[in-house]
């Protein structure tokens, strides 16, 4: 087993390195980028951006290095790059002279050199939080995403598994049909639409919940209140102060519900079918024939074997818990990771996007390993050697 884990670890590192390389090239080669739009203006006499400016910007950002040197610098840092002979330096488009592989800021002051991802330095943000270290930018969003995603994941698991088991045990019962239809509404409804509907119904003092039913209304977005709660809001009713944990939790209710609906729908379906499959097996009949109570048969004998598909699906929620939910976060103006990533891609802030994707890639391979380990727990017959 230890041998297997060591081999697996080496493979994981390889996968992460190859995929980070692929992602770096992908971002570098895909259309757009920080220089796009500037080039068109350079030919124009009246434009303020000259070709020299563009070259200066590209050297400032390190784009002149090209994807290969760029990736090496991203991975290992640029502080050692002054040992590379001049003959290997990239040539300037304008002058034809070799340009240093180190960025301008790094040449001026050694403290400004990037240390590379291997040494825990994700570089500096270009756009979203210009000039601040990417690691700090990501960390500032992490708390919000963790609250939302762990809440939604735990809630959906707690609801989806019992629903799935119930639907399987009572297949074709009325409640089974209700759950089935409900879960398909969950998957067929686009999240942006469902999110907005939830806001319209429950959020703000114009919502029908408040105006017609005179019930306290929910916040429509954000993580905390910026001023004292208004009359009629849930916060005032509960006496919650802005910025406290209770305030954050109240704001998390609606987005968590929307996300849970989405996850629950799919997961309960997987639970139901694999449970159905297992319930018809001989050993379940044997367990019943022994006179075991139905509860024991279902939870001790059947459930364990029905968990494999669910494990496959749910472990890949781990990168999701870090990565956040793009659409839900946007609809509820929830400043989390997904929101940040979309902004970073949209505004071509590649250091931020790269860091996000790198951490996600690491979590994907970890999730995959965890899934394999969990298989051996629920089914000890499975062995990896």
């Amino acid at each position, binding site marked *: 087993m230890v041998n297997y884990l060591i*081999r697996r670890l080496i*493979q994981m590192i*390889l*996968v*992460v390195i*190859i*995929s980070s390389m*692929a*992602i770096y090239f*992908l*971002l570098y*080669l*895909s*259309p757009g980028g920080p220089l796009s739009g500037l080039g068109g203006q350079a030919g124009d006499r009246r434009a303020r951006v000259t070709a020299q400016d563009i070259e200066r910007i590209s050297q400032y950002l390190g784009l002149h290095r090209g994807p290969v040197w760029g990736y090496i610098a991203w991975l290992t840092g640029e502080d050692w790059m002054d040992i590379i002979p001049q003959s290997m330096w990239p040539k300037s488009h304008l002058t034809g002279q070799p340009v240093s592989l180190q960025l301008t800021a790094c040449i001026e002051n050694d403290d400004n050199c990037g240390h590379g991802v291997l040494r825990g330095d994700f570089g500096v943000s270009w756009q979203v939080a210009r000039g601040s270290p990417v690691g700090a930018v990501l960390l500032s969003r992490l708390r919000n995403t963790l609250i939302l995603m762990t809440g939604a994941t735990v809630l959906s698991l707690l609801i989806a598994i019992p629903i799935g088991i119930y639907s399987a045990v009572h297949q074709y019962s009325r409640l089974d*049909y209700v759950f*089935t*239809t409900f879960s*398909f*509404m969950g*998957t*067929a*409804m*686009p999240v*942006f*639409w469902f999110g*907005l509907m939830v806001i*319209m119904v429950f959020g703000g003092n114009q919502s029908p919940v408040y105006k017609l039913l005179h019930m306290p209304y929910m916040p429509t977005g954000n993580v905390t209140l910026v001023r004292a709660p208004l009359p009629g809001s849930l916060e005032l009713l509960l006496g919650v102060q802005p910025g406290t944990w209770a305030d954050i939790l109240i704001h998390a209710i609606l987005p968590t519900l929307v996300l849970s609906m989405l996850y629950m*729908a*799919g997961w309960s*379906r*997987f639970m139901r*079918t*694999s449970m*159905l*499959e297992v319930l*018809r*097996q001989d050993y379940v009949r044997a367990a019943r024939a022994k006179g075991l109570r139905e509860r024991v048969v279902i939870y001790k004998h059947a459930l364990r*074997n029905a968990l*494999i*598909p669910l*494990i*496959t*699906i749910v472990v*890949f929620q781990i990168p999701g818990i870090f990565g956040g939910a793009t659409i839900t976060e946007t609809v509820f103006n929830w400043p989390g990771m997904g929101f940040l990533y*979309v902004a970073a*891609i949209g505004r071509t802030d590649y250091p931020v*996007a790269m860091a996000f*994707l790198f951490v*996600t*890639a690491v979590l*994907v*391979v970890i999730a*995959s390993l965890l*899934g394999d380990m969990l*298989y051996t727990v629920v*089914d000890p*017959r*499975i062995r*990896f*050697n």
Partner: protein
Amino acid sequence: MAVAELKSENLTTFKQEKPIVVIARRFLKHKLAVAGLVVIVFFVLAAIFAPWIAPYGVYKQNLAPVYSNPSGQHILGTDELGRDIFSRLLYAARLSLFITVVVNLASEVTGTLVGAFSGYFGGRVDAAIQRVVEFMLTLPQLPLLLFFSAILRGMTVPGLPPEWSQALIISFVLIVFGWMGSTRLVRGMVLSLREQDFAQAARALGCSKLSIILRHMIPNALAPVIVNLTLGLGYVIVLEAALSFLGFGIQPPVPTWGNMLQNVQQRMWEQPWLAFYPGLCIFLTSLAFNYMGDGLRDALDPRLKM
């Protein structure tokens, strides 16, 4: 004490029926599955005969009423350019159904085969295939699609109208990046199935590896794949719309349910029910496919006695 006598005429032998007849009979017993089939057939017919059913042309604009409410003239109202929503829904069914069915079927079939081989052979084969799957899962969707849209933009499949050749190209890209989910699902199942007694029995009987995989592993691992397939059907319709939003995919004014849903976003606050029509079509399709999938799974289940 009388011993019960066993007479041969007491034992009725089952009439041997062809498997396909048994499956069809079991399927027809599942009422909601039949209802699902009817809905799907209805949508497919509506899509095929759209030019004859639709009261207006797809691109026909009425100058006066934009975003009009349902009326006698336009049973579902008009959209942002005054085009008849009902007619556009009918035409949209063509591309939406085509793309989602092709993409889902192809990626589930590929995923199932790859996953079954990976899980059954284990060892190095499994490690290699799973590392590729992990690699594919780490690639970011949005930049990837942007990249592909830049490469494939303007590419056409000869002999097809532009929107159909776009549909084929999108389907291809979505299949290439869509097979990993079912691969993981099937592999997980097969890892457990290959250690079970019936697999050992099959090996002892001298079945070839290929036939064990195809006849014993895959049929037993199919349940989660069918769920994955039915969940994916609704998802791909919406995903296609996200693609066309990026400038890749079916471009307006050609309607698909996905891009009709997308267009509604601007009017969400004023007329939220506009999302209802394309949303309902997607919902009904995935619900119908799901019940059909359920019925199919039951009909194919060898353990279920009818």
